């Protein structure tokens, strides 16, 4: 397995894991309060839509010339990956609140308990739509990553397998724990995924624009190292800036 293939597998797995942790919180919050039948039907329906998207878009992209595909995919991965990286840096430096799964679970349960009961097609419509939307929206990011990673390198199966493994792992963990997975270091994983997406985007985007990288795939590691170091420095500088701006005595 080449370096880029290992990184694609890791990237798809990590992105899927972190998004599925968030989807699990929504599903658990709704399922515990409203019952499991409609909630799980919503999850299944969303999973079918997501699988259909991968099955339809993945093969269709093989007809696009590889340099054009890498330019488009690279640009999209850059824009998308930098959003993840930006938020992870701001969270790590204390400029943005950390995502709290336990709090999200409590909020989801409160909203599910307060919502009225409406039946459609024999389903609790609230439970169905909330779980469907939750899984679909969290899953769309994973589908985007799987398709872009897989198509630009011609390894759609590998990327999809990495994402599917994470779905299985998070589902099993959720069933065993029967609660939100608040101990998963979400920001650290998002940081790593953001770095991977941005580095691949930079590498493929430039390659699609006609660049011939020195050392070929070794350049990908160099870009990853450079952006990793820069992000580390940015976290340190922003954290220091935040502490310097904090009024004296605020630590007490």
């Amino acid at each position: 397995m080449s370096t880029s293939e290992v990184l694609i597998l890791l990237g798809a797995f990590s992105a899927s894991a972190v998004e599925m942790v968030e989807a699990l919180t929504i599903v658990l919050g709704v399922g515990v309060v409203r019952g499991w039948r409609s909630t799980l039907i919503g999850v299944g329906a969303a999973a079918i839509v997501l699988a259909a998207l991968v099955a339809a878009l993945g093969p269709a992209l093989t007809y696009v010339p590889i340099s054009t595909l890498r330019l488009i995919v690279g640009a999209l991965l850059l824009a998308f990956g930098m959003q993840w990286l930006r938020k992870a840096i701001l969270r790590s430096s204390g400029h943005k609140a950390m995502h709290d799964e336990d709090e999200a679970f409590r909020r989801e349960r409160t909203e599910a308990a307060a919502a009225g009961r409406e039946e459609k097609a024999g389903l609790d419509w609230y439970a169905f739509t909330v779980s469907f939307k939750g899984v679909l929206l969290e899953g769309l990011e994973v589908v985007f990553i799987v398709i872009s990673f897989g198509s630009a390198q011609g390894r759609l199966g590998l990327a999809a397998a990495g994402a599917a493994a994470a779905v299985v792992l998070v589902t099993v963990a959720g069933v065993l724990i029967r609660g939100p997975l608040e101990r998963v270091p979400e920001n650290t994983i998002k940081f790593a995924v953001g770095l991977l997406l941005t580095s691949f985007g930079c590498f493929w985007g430039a390659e699609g624009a006609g660049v011939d990288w020195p050392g070929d795939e070794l350049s990908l590691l160099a870009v990853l190292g450079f952006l990793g170091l820069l992000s580390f420095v940015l976290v340190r500088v922003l954290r220091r800036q935040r502490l310097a701006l904090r009024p004296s005595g605020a630590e007490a």
Partner: protein
Amino acid sequence: MKYLQAFGRFWWDFIVGDDWRVAAGLAVALGLTAALTHSGVNAWWLMPPAVGALLAGSVWRAASRD
């Protein structure tokens, strides 16, 4: 019309996100790389610092607003 707006907003948030300057800067950097490469310069050195500068600028602006 409402659904069309919501659809457009969804994709804008999905791809562009909180800082449109980053997306615009990336488009300029990629365009410049393509232009240089097609004029015979192997501009592999352009994208990494451009991405780094856009990232640093974006987090700095966000932190300054905090």
